[in-house]
Every structure is written in C-alpha cells, then in structure tokens.
C-alpha cells in the first residue's frame, strides 16, 4: 500500500513486517524515531516482540547478540556515538557470525559534537566484518531492511543497513509498504545453524589459539565474498515478488556514453541525479554509480561499471584524517591493476550535515578540468572560516 511515511516510521513498519522475536535499542538522535515507532507498535499490540530497552548501546548490541545466538530473529538500531560504543560488540557479533540486522541512521562522530549526517560512524566499523548496505532513499531503506533479514539468515552474517540521518530518517516520502502475507512468503522463519539449545548443547565464542585464528578469519572473509551473490540474488527475488529492485550491489544510471563517472552512497545519489537532470547540458553528462553494497565490496561490479571512463569522481561522506577519502582510497585500490582506469577525483562532501545542494553536480564536473587539483579534497570546505594556521 502506498502511503506517506516518515523514514523512521517506515523502517519501524518494515521491521515489524519481519516479525522480530527480540528488539533491543538505546535512544540516540537521529535513530530515536525508529525505536519510538517500534515501541508504539508493541504498545498497540501490532508487533509481538520482546522489546528490551537497555541502559546503553553496548548492551543493546549484546542483547541482540544473545537473542540471535539463542535462535531469535533480532533487530537493533543506532547511530554515531552509539555505533562506536557498540564497536567491541559489533566485531564480536560478526566474528561469531551471528545473523541479525541493525539500522544505522548515519550521523557524524564527536568531537566536535554534531547530530547531523555523515558516514563517519559506519565507516569506523568498516572492518568489523558486518555486511554494510547503503540506502539511497526511504523506499530502498524499507526494502533493504526486509532483504537484510533474509541475507543475514542465508549468509549467517550480521547486516547493517545504513541510511542517512535526518535526510532520510526524518523525511516524509511516499512509501509502497509491502503486504504482510507477501513478506511472510519472502522471509522464511528464522533459523541459525549454531543456535544455543539444551537438546544439542554447543559452545560458542571459545578461546582460539594461533593454530586456528587465521583459518577463522579466512573463512569469515570468504563468507563475506560469497555474500556478494546472496545480496544480488535476494534483490532479484525481491524484484520477482514486488516488482522493484534496490540495485543489487550497485547500479549505473545517467549517460552510458559519458566519459565522466560519479560514485556515491546514500542520499547523495538523489541530489546528484537531480543536479544532473538540471545542468547536464551546461556541465556535461555523467555516468552515475550508486553503490549499495560497501561491505562486501563489489570489486568486479565496480570495475565493469567504470569501464570506458576517463574521470571518476568518488564522493566520500567521511574522512580518514591523514589519508583522505575512504571510499576513494578503496576504489583507487580496486582499480589499480585495471588498464586505462579512469583518473580518480576523490572529494569528501557533506560532513557533519553540511548541506549538499543540487548545484554540487556542476561544481564537481567543473573541478575535474583543473589539472592541478589534488587527488583528495574536502570539497565544500570554506577556508576563510579557519585561522590561517589551521588551513
């Protein structure tokens, strides 16, 4: 059914459709509306779940860990400082290969304190071993959340669904909310092969000596690489069932013949799409690459997507101080051995909620013409706001 919903409300409804056995969360802006809406669904009897309101994000992550290990479908949501407080547990969940789903309402990480959007939080746990999927709009966030439960179950890996804080979480959009019966058909009952059960006692989370550690890390990496096809298969199955798709690992749109490509994740894609529609005539055409899967990284799909390009603009909504862009660096790495790879122009944009206007498209396209431009820049920085010694 199509209805106008706030992003967070839509996510809460999508989670409820997946019938989680256990939900646990701790409030943090801009995730709060998600858990408030879930609480309301529980209070009204529209969602039957054990809702565990904990005393910290650290415990929220630990509760869903324990719940999923005990055979329950589990869900949590957080952002920013919450992601960082959870960090130790997130690595542990992934290391134990426990399937569960978490929404990250992406927000900058303090200091300086900022409640607004960027990707610094989920990037900080990039190497935790979670699947990380980015939603470009709220329909994608809803569809990806439901898909995430199936991906988690099929891969026995945890899945993080990243959506831009405020820009998506607090924005009303027309959402096609799937039918409950259709979701029941799409999403099988929860099952976890190593679940805790007194009838078949297993020991989870043991001490592992150097004799086995490398093998376990290898198998985790291998499972992540294999998850690439599970992500695309799940999205195809979704398309078969609901007639729309989230784009699998990544999607390519815009002008196929363009010599310039732009890669972005999350809501920035929509801004660029509109910017391109308005100013492609003056600024020139581009191939727009929307990256949905950040972990596992879609190396092969990306190499194909950039074939024939002279320039590739990579937009990071986070920064690795002392190096530059994170996505930009990774893309440079996966294209390193590609013959005639495009020249990479890596920019950090929209940090800490800095508005990204539609005109950014033309500005980015103009910037590639500067042969002396650095390989990385914080594109929308205003150096006049800084003391000379801080520039």
């Amino acid at each position: 059914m199509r209805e106008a919903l706030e992003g967070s409300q839509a996510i809460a409804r999508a989670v409820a459709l997946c019938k989680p056995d256990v939900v646990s969360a701790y409030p943090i802006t801009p995730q709060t509306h998600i858990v408030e809406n879930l609480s309301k669904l529980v209070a009204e009897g529209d969602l039957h779940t054990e809702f565990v309101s904990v005393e910290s994000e650290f415990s929220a992550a630990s509760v869903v860990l324990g719940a999923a290990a005990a055979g329950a479908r589990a869900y949590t949501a957080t952002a920013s400082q919450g992601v960082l407080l959870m960090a130790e547990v997130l690595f542990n969940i992934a290391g134990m290969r426990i399937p569960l789903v978490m929404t990250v309402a992406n927000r900058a990480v303090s200091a300086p304190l900022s409640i607004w959007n960027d990707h610094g939080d989920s990037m900080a746990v990039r190497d935790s071993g979670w699947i990380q999927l980015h939603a470009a709009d709220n329909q994608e966030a809803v569809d990806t959340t439901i898909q995430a439960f199936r991906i988690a179950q099929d891969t026995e890996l945890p899945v993080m669904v990243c959506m831009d804080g405020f820009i998506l979480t607090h924005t009303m959009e027309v959402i096609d909310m799937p039918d409950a019966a259709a979701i029941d058909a799409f999403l099988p009952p929860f099952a976890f092969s190593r679940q805790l059960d007194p009838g078949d006692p297993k020991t989870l989370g043991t001490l592992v000596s150097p004799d086995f550690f490398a093998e376990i890390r290898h198998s985790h990496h291998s499972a992540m690489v294999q998850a690439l096809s599970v992500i695309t298969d799940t999205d195809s199955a979704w398309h078969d069932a609901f007639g729309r798709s989230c784009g699998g690992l990544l999607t390519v749109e815009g002008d196929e013949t363009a010599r310039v490509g732009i890669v972005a994740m999350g809501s920035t894609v929509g801004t660029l799409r509109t910017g391109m529609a308005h100013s492609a005539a003056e600024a020139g055409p581009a191939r727009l690459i929307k990256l949905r899967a950040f972990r596992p990284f879609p190396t092969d799909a990306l190499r194909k997507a950039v074939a024939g390009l002279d320039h590739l603009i990579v937009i990071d909504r986070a920064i690795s101080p002392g190096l530059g862009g994170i996505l930009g660096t990774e893309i440079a790495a996966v294209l390193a051995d590609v013959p005639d790879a495009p020249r990479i122009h890596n920019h950090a944009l929209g940090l800490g909620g800095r508005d990204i206007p539609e005109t950014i498209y033309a500005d980015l396209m103009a910037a590639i013409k500067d042969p002396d431009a650095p390989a990385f820049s914080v594109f929308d920085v205003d150096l006049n706001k800084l003391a000379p010694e801080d520039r």
Partner: protein
Amino acid sequence: MQDEQRLAELRQKFGRQPAAPGEAQTPVTPREAQPRFRGLESGHRACQGCGEALAARLVMESAGPDVMVANATGCLEVFTTPWPQSAWRVPWIHSLFENAPAVASGMEAAMKAKGRNTKVLAFGGDGGTYDIGFQALSGMLERYHNILYVCYDNEAYMNTGIQRSSSTPHAATTTTSPAGKERMGKRHLKKDLLSIIAAHHIPYAASASVAYPQDLQRKVRYAMGIEGPTFLVVHSPCPLGWRHGSALTIEVARRAVDCGLFPIVELERGALSNVMPIRQPRPVSDYLQLQGRFSHLMKPDDPRAAEERDHLQALADYNIEVFGLGGDGRDPADTAAQSYVGRGGPAAAGRN
C-alpha cells in the same frame, strides 16, 4: 508438562545409561559414578585447587540440565573452552568481558519470545561483575530478566595475572597493588557489591563460599526456582593469586567465612533474610597467615603491618555486627572446620 517431558528427554540423552545384563561394566571413576548432572565436565585446564572451577561445577550440578550459560571473559571461559575442546555439557556462549548480563538478557528474551522455560545463567568473575560489567549487570537486574547471575569472586584479575579489582580486599597485594616502602597493598576497601545489588530490590541475592558446598547448592536451587533476577556471589580462592597451597583452597575459604571477612548472607527483595552464623569467630590473622598476598601484614616488627591487621580485624568485626553473624558459642555437635570427625557423635567432638 511440556517441560517435564523435555527434562526427561534431556536426562535420557545425557544421563548415564545402565549396562545391559551380561555386559562388562566399564570401570568408572568415582566422579563419573556420582549420580549428578555434570554441566561442567572434568578435564578442563584450571589450575590445581582452583576455587572457581569447583564453584562452577557445584553451580552447574544444581542448575542443569535445562539451562544455557552466558560467560564473561575470564579464567572460567579460558580454561573450559580452548578450541576445539569444551568442558561444557550445556549450551554456553562467551561474548566479551563486560557484557555477559546483557547477552544473557538477550538469551532470556529469546526464550520468552519462543515460549520456552530454559533458565539462563550468567557467569562472571569479580572483574567482570564488580568492575567492567557492572553497568550491564545493573541494567539486567533493573529490567527484571529471569536470569541467575553468578559471580565467582576470587578478588582480583587472575586471568591477566593478578591485578587489583574493586573486589580485592583492603591491604592485599596484587601486581598492581604491591606492597613496598610506601604502600601496604591495596589502599581501598573491597566494594560492598551485595548492598548495591540489594538496592535493586531483586527477589533473591546471596553470598556463598566453596567451603560450604551444600549451602552454595541450596542457594542455586532456590534461585533456580525464582522467576526473575537472582544474584549469587561465590567466594572462590585462587591459589596462584592468593599465594596459598593448592590443597588449602577449602581451608582458606572456610577461614574467610569464619573470621567474618566474607559474610555468608541471603537477601530477599533487598532485605537481609538469612545469615550463616559463625559460632566461634576466628581471628582475621588465622585467615591472613595462610596467604602470600597478606604476608607483608605478618611481619612481626612492622607497626604498619599491625595497623593493617587491626584494620582488617575491625572490618571483620563490623561484618559480624551488622549482619548479626555472632553465634552462641561452641556447639559440641558442630564439626565444621575440624580436622577430623570422631566416631560416636557429640562426645567425641570435645577432643578437637
């Protein structure tokens, strides 16, 4: 009804099977011959005389088999689960140092969601309970999860090599509270955790000691019957960390109780409901002198040692007074702490 069936199935699956008629009896060790559920199996890698291993075995015997365990990082986790081996016969999970109560909360929520009655246990040492996992523990108690939390209290971070925790007794030496010219071991007091637990007004909280296994097991069984959060702290000597002989674990634990330094009490809804009385309190120095961690307090001519001994004696006296541990003197039938029990009943007891 469903649960009884389930228990019967579990017993069938994991209990000892009688040998068929005519079949040769395989020799069993006395330990195997004990008609008890062995949740924690022998053959693990604990040190000789480990109080924690003994306590965990006693807890599991009384709690099993329809349980699952969330275990904090620590000795118990390390010595029972070196991959690919495990000493646990129940579903068991270790996640992190400070989240066992929260992981257990999730397991309990899962059991509730699935309509199962399997009891969730959470285990931690004193570091994981008094210190780093304290916030998660408070949250678990406040949210009223149906979990029995057991703290195996050996009064320091033993797994990392004997560092002081907030449970380390005053004046004890550890590697981070050594004694020297300027210091007499730990400068601070042992945290009164039970009072903080009591402030949560949970149905049941108690202290116990490996020196009194029947008392410990009775408390576990009592807690298992309660629907809600329950808490048990078990005094568990660590021969390596306390620096006493491995054969002295029980003796050291008993003296801690008998001198009043480790009071054995029970609290219901936060109010003191029962204590184990000490018929004849022993001087604290009887307890201290067995342990290397207090050896600096036993130097005859050091006035600082005398002062700290007095300090610890005062703490023990205070416990005896506030918890009302004082008994009514020696009972001729009481054989506790005797080196032998004479035949013939009470009359023989006078000899010791």
